[in-house]
C-alpha cells in the first residue's frame, strides 16, 4: 500500500522560462532521443494515482515531441512499472541508472518504492524529480540531486490541520488511519502538529483496512467529543466505511483528510450520496474551483486536455496536472541547461516561482521541497466536475 503525489510545471511553455538554448549541445548524439527514467506504479494494489499521473506525463511528452522535441531531439520515456512493489523498484533503478544511463528519473510514485529507490539513485548520482509526498525523500545533504515538485506529507497534513484549526476553528479532533506505512506515518506526524496548533486530539488510532466494522472506533471518537474526523488512508474501502458509519450513526461531524476521500472509488462505495456531505479532502489551489471558476492556468490546461480527448471522468485533475508538470519541467530543463545530471541539478537549484498547473515551484540549494504551503487546501468532495472540486468553504481568497 502506498501513496503517491505529484507536482507539475506550468503548462504554458511560453511562460517565464523560455530561455534560449544554452551551451552548444555535445557533438555526439545530437539527434539521439533524450532518455528520461520513469518509475510509475501502473499495476498493483495502489495504482490508480499512478495511472492518472501517467496520462499527464504521456500527454506532456507527446506534445513536446509533436512540437519537434527539445533542440531537435525527441524525448524518450524509459518506463519501468514498479507494480507497487519496492523490490521491483530497486531492480528498475539499477536498470535505469546503470544500463540505460538516464540523466534524470521521474518517480517513483508510491512511498515504499520511493524510499527504497532514492538512496540508490543518489548513490548513482542521477538527478531525481519526486512526485511522491514522503518527507524523508528530500534531504539536501543525503540526496543532493533529488527535488520535489509536489508537497510533502507535512505540508499536506498541515493544510488539513490549518483548515480544522484556523478555518473551521474546531478544538477537538479524532485522527484515524489504516495500518499501512502511509497511514501510520501520517498520524504520527500530524498529531503533534495539531496539538501545536492548540487542537486537542481526543482519539488517535490505526485500524486494519480489512476490518469490516469501524463502529467501535467511531463510537470511541464520538464519546470522546470529537468535533472533526481526520482520516489518513488511500484505501477507498476504509474511507467509505468511515463515511457510511458516520451516516448510519446520524453523526453530523465534518470529515477532513486524505485526497482519496474524494475519489470515484470512495463515492461508489457509499451507501447513500448524502454520506459524502461535509467531507473535505486535500487538494491544491490551482486545481480547485473558486466561485465556480478554475484559475486561468488550470482552465487553459483543462481546455487542452479536452482538445486531446484525455479521459477525465475516472481520475483527478491534479493527478494529470502533476504528471504533465513533471514532463514540462524536465523538457524545459533540458532546453535551458542540458541533459546531464549535474547540469540539471545546477539549473533546478535556481528555479523560482515556476508556474506549474499543479503548483508554483521554487527551489534553492538549501531547500529542494518546491511546493508552497498556501497552495495546499481542502475541497468539497461532493462537488466533483471534470476531475476538480470546489474549494472548501471558509477560505479567504
Amino acid at each position, binding site marked *: 500500500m502506498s501513496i503517491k503525489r505529484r507536482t507539475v510545471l506550468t503548462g504554458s511553455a511560453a511562460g517565464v522560462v523560455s530561455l534560449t538554448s544554452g551551451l552548444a549541445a555535445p557533438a555526439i548524439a545530437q539527434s539521439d532521443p533524450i532518455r528520461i527514467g520513469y518509475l510509475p506504479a501502473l499495476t498493483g*494494489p495502489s495504482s490508480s494515482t499512478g495511472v492518472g499521473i501517467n496520462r499527464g506525463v504521456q500527454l506532456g511528452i507527446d506534445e513536446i515531441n509533436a512540437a519537434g522535441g527539445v533542440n531537435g531531439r525527441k524525448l524518450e520515456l524509459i518506463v519501468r512499472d514498479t507494480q507497487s512493489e519496492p523490490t521491483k523498484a530497486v531492480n528498475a533503478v539499477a536498470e535505469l541508472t546503470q544500463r540505460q544511463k538516464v540523466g534524470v528519473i521521474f518517480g517513483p510514485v508510491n512511498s515504499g518504492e520511493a524510499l527504497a529507490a532514492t538512496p540508490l539513485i543518489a548513490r548513482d548520482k542521477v538527478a531525481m524529480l519526486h512526485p511522491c509526498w514522503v518527507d524523508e525523500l528530500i534531504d539536501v545533504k543525503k540526496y543532493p540531486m533529488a527535488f520535489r515538485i509536489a508537497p510533502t506529507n507535512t505540508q499536506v497534513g498541515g493544510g488539513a490541520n490549518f483548515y480544522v484549526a484556523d478555518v473551521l476553528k474546531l478544538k477537538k479532533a479524532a485522527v484515524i488511519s489504516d495500518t499501512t506505512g502511509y497511514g501510520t506515518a501520517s498520524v504520527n506526524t500530524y498529531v503533534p502538529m495539531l496539538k501545536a496548533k492548540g487542537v486537542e486530539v481526543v482519539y488517535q488510532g490505526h485500524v486494519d483496512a480489512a476490518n469490516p466494522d469501524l463502529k467501535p472506533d467511531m463510537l470511541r471518537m464520538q464519546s470522546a467529543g470529537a468535533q472533526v474526523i481526520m482520516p489518513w488512508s488511500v484505501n477507498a474501502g476504509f474511507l467509505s466505511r468511515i463515511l457510511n458509519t458516520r451516516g448510519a450513526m446520524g453523526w453530523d461531524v465534518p470529515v477532513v483528510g486524505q485526497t482519496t476521500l474524494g475519489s470515484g*472509488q470512495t463515492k461508489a462505495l457509499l451507501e447513500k450520496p448524502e454520506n459524502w456531505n461535509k467531507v473535505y479532502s486535500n487538494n491544491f489551489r490551482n486545481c480547485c474551483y473558486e466561485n465556480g471558476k478554475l484559475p486561468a492556468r488550470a482552465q487553459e490546461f483543462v481546455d487542452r486536455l479536452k482538445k486531446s480527448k484525455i479521459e477525465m471522468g475516472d481520475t483527478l485533475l491534479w493527478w494529470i496536472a502533476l504528471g504533465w508538470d513533471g514532463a514540462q519541467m524536465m523538457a524545459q530543463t533540458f532546453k535551458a541547461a542540458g541533459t546531464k545530471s549535474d547540469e540539471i541539478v545546477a539549473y533546478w537549484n535556481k528555479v523560482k516561482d515556476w508556474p506549474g498547473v499543479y503548483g508554483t515551484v521554487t527551489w534553492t540549494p538549501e531547500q529542494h521541497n518546491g511546493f508552497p504551503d498556501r497552495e495546499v487546501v481542502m475541497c468539497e468532495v461532493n462537488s466533483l466536475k471534470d476531475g476538480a472540486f470546489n474549494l472548501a468553504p471558509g477560505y479567504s481568497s
Partner: protein
Amino acid sequence: MFQSIISYGLAVGAVYALIGITYNVMFSASRVFSFTAGMLGMLGGVLGALFITEWGLPAIVGLVLVLACGAVLGIVTEIVTVRPVLKSIDQHLYVLSTLAFALMIQQLTAIWWGTDARPFPRLIPVGAGWLDQQFWLPMLACAVTIVGLELLYRKTLIGRAFLAIAEDSYAARALGLPETGLRMASYALAGMIGALAGFSGAEILLAFMGNQAILNFYGFVPVALGGMGSNRGAVIGGLALGVFQQAANFLVGGIFAAVAVFAVFIVVLLLRPEGLAGASAARRV
C-alpha cells in the same frame, strides 16, 4: 457498543462459519483441506456485484447464478486439483494443487475485476441499525445452510451416501456407492456454500479480491477449533470467532485484534491439535 459487538460479530462470524462448513464438506468427501474455500467466498461477493450491479440482473437471478458458478468451480476444483492427487494423499500434494488453483483464480480476479474493493448492492431494504440486512443476511444464510445440510444428511438417500463416504470411503465403495460421483457432488455443494458465504457477507466485506486470504484463514480457524468435519463445531467456532474478534476490536483495537486472533489460534492448536471438540486420529501403520 455491546449491541454492535453482537450484531457485527455474529454477522461476520456467520460468514466464517459458512467458510468453515465449506472446508468441512470438501474434507468429508475427500480427506482434503482445500485452499479454495476462501476463494469461493471471495468470488461470491465479486460475482454477486458483477451480476447485480454491473449487469443489472435481479437479485434472485444473481444469487442463483452465483451459486451455479460456485458449483461449477467446486466441480472444477475436484477434477483438476483433488482427484489427480488423491492416490498419494499421504504426500499432501493437495495443499499445493489447491493453493495453486486458488491463487490463479485470485489473480484473474485481480486483473479483470481490479484490486480495489467495490460495493455490493443492498438487496432487501428491510431493517435499520443493528437489524440491518447486512447483519441478518449472513446469519440467515448460515441457518439455512446448516438446517439444509442436516435434512440432506439425515433424510435423503444421497445425504446418507455422503455420510457413508465420510465415515469410510473403502467400505462405501465396497457397497457399490459411486464414490467419484459423490465426491464431485460434495465439491459442488461446497462450492455453493462457499459462494453463498461470500454473497451474504459481501455488503460488509465488499466485493474485494483481498477477501480470499482473510476468509481462508478466518474460515479455517473455526474448523481447527471445532474439530475437522464437524459442522456444528464450525458454526459455534465461527460465531465465537466473529464475536471475539469484534470484542477485541472494541477493547484493544487496531493491530492487536489481529494479533490476538492469531495468537489464540496457535496456542489452542498447540495444546489441542485435534481441536477443542475433536477426537485424536488413529495411527497409520
